[in-house]
């Protein structure tokens, strides 16, 4: 038996190498819509690879599972990977992925205008972000200026904003994060530098745990992560609720984007339409803590201009 070991190993290696080479180009999907032979009118098939934002990943994953279960689309495979918004935009721009998931407009991440113009934006959901603090901070409402002062290190104790006598610990996101960009753009209106001694975490779960457990901590989280372990802070007296976001009263929100390179092929278009359908928007989107795009009474463009 052991005499054959080299053969087995060799075959295995080759198979692995070949498999690795073969699967590389699957992402460039061929949404073959065969309009031919009468009985089956349109049979969609193809592989969709959606890569990027970890904030959007759960929604795309869940929608992908449901999509593939629909009889009509059973020949379409949807694969979803994380990796972050930057990775998603890079890969869709380079043609490695069919869809690039992103928390921010491509304009904000890619400097090359020609590359940006190739990408087609599909906004599938809205994520609102609320400032949160540790429960013992004793503050329920912060103004824009107070938030700026806290995150830029001017105010270092909760008592200066009407709370307990407790040093403020900032739990921030890394400077490249989409959540931080949203928070800085729409809550602070300005970029802030990282303060010495502040904490940076990229995972919402870790941010939540740290804010809930560290005395005096302040951070920000998407609405889906909020619960009783945290003090959710009002922003300028406005509570971060779905209704307030939809009505345009609460400004700290951003679209979740699914970018395609040029117009999507038939299978990809079917998937994007499926995510925007009521089936997903009214159920999965709200279940997972996002806000449906259909409900938004205001619109926002890449430059941040809000229109009614």
């Amino acid at each position, binding site marked *: 038996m052991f*005499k054959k070991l*080299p*053969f087995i*190993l*060799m075959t295995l*290696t080759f198979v692995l*190498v070949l498999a690795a080479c073969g699967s590389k180009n699957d992402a460039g999907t061929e949404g073959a819509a065969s309009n031919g032979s009468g009985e089956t009118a349109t049979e969609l098939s193809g592989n969709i690879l959606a890569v990027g934002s*970890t904030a959007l990943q759960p929604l795309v994953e869940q929608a992908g599972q449901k999509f593939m279960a629909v009889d009509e689309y059973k020949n379409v495979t949807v694969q979803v990977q*994380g*990796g*972050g*918004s*930057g*990775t998603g*935009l*890079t890969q869709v*721009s*380079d043609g490695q992925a069919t869809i690039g998931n992103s928390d921010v407009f491509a304009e904000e*991440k*890619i*400097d090359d205008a020609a590359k940006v113009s190739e990408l087609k934006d599909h906004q599938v959901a809205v994520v609102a972000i609320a400032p949160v603090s540790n429960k013992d901070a004793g503050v329920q409402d912060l103004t824009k200026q107070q938030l700026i002062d806290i995150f830029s290190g001017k105010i270092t104790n909760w008592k200066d904003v009407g709370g307990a006598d407790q040093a403020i*610990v900032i739990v921030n996101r*890394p*400077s*490249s*994060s*989409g959540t931080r960009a949203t928070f800085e753009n729409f809550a602070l209106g300005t*970029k802030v*530098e*990282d*303060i*010495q*001694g*502040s*904490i*940076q*975490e*990229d995972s919402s779960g*870790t941010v939540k*745990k*740290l804010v809930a*457990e*560290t*005395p005096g*901590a302040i951070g920000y989280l998407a609405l889906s992560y909020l619960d009783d372990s945290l003090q959710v802070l009002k922003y300028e007296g406005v509570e971060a609720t779905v209704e307030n976001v939809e009505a345009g009263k609460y400004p700290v929100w951003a679209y979740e984007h699914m970018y395609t390179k040029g117009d999507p092929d038939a299978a990809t278009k079917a998937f994007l339409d499926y995510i925007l359908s009521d089936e997903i928007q009214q159920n999965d989107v709200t279940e997972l803590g996002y806000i449906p795009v259909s409900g938004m009474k205001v619109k926002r463009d890449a430059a941040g201009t809000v229109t009614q």
Partner: protein
Amino acid sequence: MNNKLKPRRPLREKHYWEEWTGRIYTSICVVFLIVVMFSIVYFVASKGLSTFFQNGVSLREFLSGKTWNPTGEPAAYGALPFITGSFITTLLAALIASPLSLCAALFMTEIVPGKGKKILQPAIELLSGIPSVVYGFIGLSVIVPLLRSMFGGAGVGIAAGCLVLSVMILPTVTSIMADALSALPKGLRESSYALGATRWQTIYRVIIPTVLPALLTGIVLGMARAFGEALAVQMVIGNAPHVPTSLLESASTLTSVITLSMGNTTMGSVHNNALWSMALVLLVMTFVFVILVRLLERRNRV
């Protein structure tokens, strides 16, 4: 002669064939490995160096600049906070882990060789099998609150990072030390005992000095592991891009800032390239560790 050879001939042919397939297979694997290794080095180097050659960030600013603000105006790419963070956590982790490992290794090989090895070795090997995210979560749920209640502040920081790291490198250091100790010729111990030395005298005066280079090899390999560890450290160290002034203050390591930002930046941007430059620094440090181990091994042989 002819009669004897004849029946063996097919067998010999078979051996011949086996010999060659084995040879070809191993050669292919070796070539494959070399190609992979060089492509990785080339990839990291070309990406990492383009920060300096294409984006015009000066090497001096990168290595000695204290401000890291890639999204600011003007952008600053000083990686010194991360480099110091990596070195401090690694050295402290080695400082904590080495004596513990040495004691564990001595316990297994010198003090209670039979039972100690049976119980302690699997236990220590088990430590190396635990995924690093679990260490990170334990650090976040146990060590960070503990430090917070003992010393105040946020609890995250270098202290938490190096405590988590020291546990993570224990198995590496211990198993290398234990191997070195058990490879020691029996005659050494016996002659020491024969001269009337006690067990502690033997350990202290004979065994440790003899295997010292091998013990150091274990420590260096542990440090190499600590230097490259990303996930667990990232969860507990705090990741503020500043040179820390105390052990309890939030700091970053090269790996933690890479894992934190790599996915959020697009390929080809200066920010992304700067992260690859940090990866290059890590790679260079790994080479240094490997060279160190080689040097120690050479000393060991003499």
